[in-house]
């Protein structure tokens, strides 16, 4: 995990008059607007990326039986996927992916209106995913890629051989840890003839913006206020947080 500097508490904050504060806020606003414009440019460049035709047929397993990648489009032309870390035999999905997943149902209420389907894919067999999904109360579409190459082809699962021989690739670079599952997000396009194209994938901090808790915390006085040596050491499954004091 990258080290993100955060301010602990209010000790370094100057208390000023309203007039002084507005002047300081306006100076920051110039930078914020620049960031918004830069982000628009980055989004445009992302849409100009080339794409790769998906030649393999992947058959996933889910609550209603078998489903192909094409089925996950649900009649729409775009599909976005969250690669959720949940390996065979884990018993529970990754705590940190769960932190992200707690927002998926609210996102899903709107993106379907933009010709976009949403799905979550994990490598654990469906029978292991189903009870965990029920416990978390999530409604989004979640399927298993167990016994398919999907997770390996999209560089979010790694074979023992890849890990041992340091041949695993994650986030477009050699994977530097002993782990067999990692997180990510991918986007696909389906044309009128039914051909599917992989247009985008992102990993690690590339999914940071999809975490609404962080986007809110970044606007508060303390920011994320995380342990720089173990960010997210405070994260739990949402049913395991103790009530606030």
């Amino acid at each position, binding site marked *: 995990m990258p080290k993100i500097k955060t301010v602990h*508490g*209010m000790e370094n*904050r100057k*208390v000023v008059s309203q007039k002084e*504060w507005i002047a300081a*806020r306006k100076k920051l*606003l110039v930078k*914020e*607007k620049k960031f*918004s414009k830069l982000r628009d440019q980055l*989004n*445009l460049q*992302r*849409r100009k990326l080339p*794409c790769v035709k998906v030649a393999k047929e992947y058959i996933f397993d889910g609550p209603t039986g078998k489903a192909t990648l094409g089925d996950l489009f649900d009649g729409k*032309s*775009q599909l*976005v996927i969250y690669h959720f870390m949940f390996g065979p035999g884990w018993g529970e999905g990754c705590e940190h992916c769960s932190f992200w997943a707690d*927002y998926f149902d*609210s*996102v899903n*209420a*709107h*993106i*379907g*209106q*933009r*010709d*976009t389907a*949403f799905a979550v894919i994990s490598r654990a067999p469906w029978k292991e995913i189903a009870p965990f999904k029920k416990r978390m109360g999530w409604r989004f579409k979640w399927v298993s890629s167990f016994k398919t190459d999907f997770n390996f082809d999209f560089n979010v699962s790694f074979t023992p051989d890849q890990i041992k021989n340091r041949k695993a690739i994650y986030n477009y670079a050699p994977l530097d840890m002993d782990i067999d599952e990692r997180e990510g*997000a991918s*986007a*696909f*396009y389906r044309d009128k003839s039914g051909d599917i*194209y992989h*247009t*985008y994938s*992102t990993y690690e901090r590339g999914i940071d*913006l*999809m975490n*609404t808790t962080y*986007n*809110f915390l*970044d*606007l*508060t*006085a*303390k920011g994320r206020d995380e342990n720089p040596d173990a960010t997210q050491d405070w994260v739990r499954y949402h049913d395991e947080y103790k009530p606030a004091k």
Partner: protein
Amino acid sequence: MQAPQSIPSVLAAACGLDAAAYTRELPGMSAFALEDGVVYHTYSTYERGLDILWGAYQWLDRAPLGRNEPDEWWRRRDEYKKR
């Protein structure tokens, strides 16, 4: 053919208001801190400053067509027509 309606007029109609009344209310976000019983206002943001707090945009930005917004498409979630 009808002239296209402005975003405020469409959204105003959805709230049962005219555009002038609608634009007297605009969205924003503020942050406060409480220390030793004293409340401090630490931050406020408006307009596109709120962009990042809308989860659906963060995902649409990664989709092949992006936000793909030729018109104001969003509704309250219980008001979308079933497709």
